[in-house]
């Protein structure tokens, strides 16, 4: 994709969503106010996270070099790389799409797609939310699900890294 195309695609997408809103507005105006309330709440929640993500991006751009990345999560790092992907995904905060630019930045610095896939998969496991899962589904379910999801995330990462050319 050309640079100019890439910079306009985001705006085309935004315009398409606005058109979608206009269509829904004519069909069911009540849904629009409901979705705008929902949207406003999301914005309120993510603005502080967005600032945090911006800060993290600055830190990554400042400290993370290709050599450092390859040391920790490159091919030579072996099992450590997967541990970093698993733990990193778990402790990362904010909506998934907030992390895409950071992960792209990491990939530009040499990080493999398998690591990115494992990282993204582990975002499903959120330590602060564990009491909530226990409340709804019980402790046995939570423990079993968490272990299986960690194993699955690494399998998925390995499939993407070794089995699929991207």
């Amino acid at each position, binding site marked *: 994709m050309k640079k100019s195309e890439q910079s306009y695609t985001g705006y085309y997408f*935004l315009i398409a969503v606005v058109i979608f809103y206009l269509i829904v507005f004519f069909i069911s105006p009540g849904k629009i106010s409901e979705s705008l309330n929902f949207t406003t709440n999301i914005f309120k929640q993510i603005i502080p996270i967005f600032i945090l993500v911006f800060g993290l991006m600055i830190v990554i751009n400042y400290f993370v070099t290709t050599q450092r990345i390859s040391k920790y999560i490159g091919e030579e790092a072996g099992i450590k790389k997967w541990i970093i992907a698993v733990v990193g995904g778990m402790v990362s905060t904010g909506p998934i799409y907030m992390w895409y630019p950071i992960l792209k930045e990491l990939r530009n610095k040499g990080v493999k797609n398998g690591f990115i896939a494992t990282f993204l998969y582990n975002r499903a496991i959120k330590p602060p939310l564990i009491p909530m899962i226990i409340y709804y*589904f019980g402790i*046995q*379910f939570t423990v079993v*699900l968490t272990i299986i999801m960690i194993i699955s995330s690494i399998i998925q990462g390995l499939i*993407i890294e070794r089995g699929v050319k991207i």
Partner: protein
Amino acid sequence: MDQNFKQSIIKSWRAIYKLLPILVGIILLIGLVNAIIPKTYYAKLFSKNIFLDSIIGGGLGSIMAGNPVTSYILGGEFLKQGISLVAVTAFIVAWVTVGMVQLPAESLILGKRFAIIRNLLSFVFSIIVAITTVFILGLI
């Protein structure tokens, strides 16, 4: 100020600035999807077949978006209504691991091929994870 630090701020700002229209679009889309599809509607879609239920659960979780807490609350309600644990597990796993609504943003930033393969694999894994979890729980 350190020149490298200044450069990293400029670089990060450019990345954020590029993301802004996509980010605003995604959030608006999430709001609309949540408003259009009523949460009570989902319960009607499940059957009693372990594979079919996990596929439906994973499928629903894939198109839904939002905080994982919402999926736990919905999943808990589904269980109360007699929907199988395997369907609910696939639903809550796919909710966070598959992102149909975020797919355009993921494709644009991380690459179309990567985004499609990752989301497809995550969908398949949501079914495998659900069936395995429920199977292991049955053994304990």
